């Protein structure tokens, strides 16, 4: 039997024997199962994954009838970053009319709630006009990005300066102060956009600054949901594991540090989130079979634990997609198909 063409997590093409692919699939699922204390993939699922990798087709796809809805971490910035010289509204129309988008998302190029706050008055007319001429649900999205609230660019003392000096209590207090600022910004921008007509708000890359950031997003979601019960709220995560940078913050009596996706989703649901997006980071030096099996193990457990729709993050460097800005379709299509079918996802 010839060798199987696949890639590393950094996108570089590699060849592996069938035994090596099977071995990496098993190692990937074991790694995730051990860390998150969730079931590993079954023999049938590993065999299915092996067959996906064994196929020489450049592109694979889900079976007919298994199609799912797509949500985005911004539509408008993707067009701007590609240096296509069109407006935000035109960008949304490209996604609606040329890229088969099930939903749309308007966003500021500096994709965080803090920088979006002072320009929200300029974003609202764009949202209003876009809502008049587009049909799919239209989100406004940005990242909680708690790091922006630390000095030198933000108002709070930087916990990463304080902790190495042994100032643990001061660092934690700074995180707690930053949470208050971040919640205010997210609620302000979310409220302004919803009252303009947006169908929903997206908290993207949540938890990038650890447990304190996750808490800020949960609190903001809770406030917005109480204020606007019909509001759609999507929460996409930054990583499979909530880093305990604060270490002690809790939501609804649950300590946030160290939570994996199957526990993250339960808190998101309690806070009022209507679509949850687990994100499983790539290990660039490992093979895609390893990374894909690892991601599927976490994501499947999350999907099974969730009562709300789960849209897994399958962007650059997450969900078994290589860590490259121009993802190769052989790798992306395998990750896309496998996640939808094995994890019984509701969307991506």
């Amino acid at each position, binding site marked *: 039997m010839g060798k199987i063409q696949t890639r590393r997590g950094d996108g570089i093409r590699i060849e592996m024997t069938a035994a090596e692919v099977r071995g990496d699939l098993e190692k990937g699922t074991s790694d995730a199962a051990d860390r998150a204390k969730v079931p590993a993939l079954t023999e049938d699922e590993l065999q299915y994954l092996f067959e996906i990798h064994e196929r020489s087709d450049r592109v694979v796809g889900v079976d007919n009838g298994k199609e799912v809805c797509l949500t985005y971490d911004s539509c408008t910035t993707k067009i701007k970053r590609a240096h296509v010289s069109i407006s935000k509204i035109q960008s949304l129309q490209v996604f609606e009319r040329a890229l088969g988008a*099930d939903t749309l998302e308007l966003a500021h190029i500096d994709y965080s709630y803090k920088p979006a706050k002072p320009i929200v008055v300029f974003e609202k007319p764009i949202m209003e006009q876009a809502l008049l001429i587009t049909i799919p649900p239209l989100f406004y999205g940005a990242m909680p990005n708690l790091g922006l609230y630390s000095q030198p660019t933000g108002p709070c003392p930087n916990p990463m300066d304080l902790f190495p000096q042994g100032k643990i209590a001061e660092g934690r207090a700074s995180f707690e102060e930053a949470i208050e600022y971040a919640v205010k910004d997210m609620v302000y921008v979310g409220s302004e956009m919803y009252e303009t007509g947006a169908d929903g708000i997206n908290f993207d890359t949540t938890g990038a600054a650890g447990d304190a950031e996750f808490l800020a997003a949960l609190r903001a979601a809770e406030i917005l949901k109480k204020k606007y019960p019909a509001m759609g709220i999507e929460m996409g995560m930054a990583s499979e594991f909530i880093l305990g940078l604060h270490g002690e913050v809790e939501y609804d009596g649950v300590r946030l540090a160290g939570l994996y996706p199957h526990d993250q989703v339960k808190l998101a649901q309690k806070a009022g989130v*209507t679509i949850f997006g687990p994100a499983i980071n790539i290990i660039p030096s490992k093979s895609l079979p390893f990374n894909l099996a690892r991601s599927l193990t976490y994501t499947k457990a999350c999907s099974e634990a969730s009562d709300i729709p789960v849209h897994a993050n399958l962007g650059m460097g997450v969900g078994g997609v290589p860590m490259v800005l*121009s993802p190769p379709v052989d790798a992306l299509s395998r990750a896309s198909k496998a996640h939808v079918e094995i994890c019984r996802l509701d969307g991506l």
Partner: protein
Amino acid sequence: MGVGDPYGMHAAHAIVSGMGGIRTAGDLVARLQLNRAMKIDAAKKYVADRLGVSVEDVADPVAMREVREDMDLGTLNECPGVAKGIDAKFRIAKLLDLEINSVNIFKQKISGT
């Protein structure tokens, strides 16, 4: 979804796994996920029942083009006189028995309340 160039990320996922947006009934199914937190199978069935088609039809661009034209829900290749943008959403809200935020705000504006 996530970061990546529009060809390698957004077009690729749309072809591999996506419902197809307004080419099919992807936008309608997405509304039920977003606003009612319905899982994919339940959302597809709800939409299929409301449209009077099979669940398989809701992701089929040929079947759905005809349905969208007949029910005037907005189509990809717009023709003169068919619902576009907000007027399509008025019809979608009624069809799905769903509150659409922008439709409600539009109604408030024109009623002067």
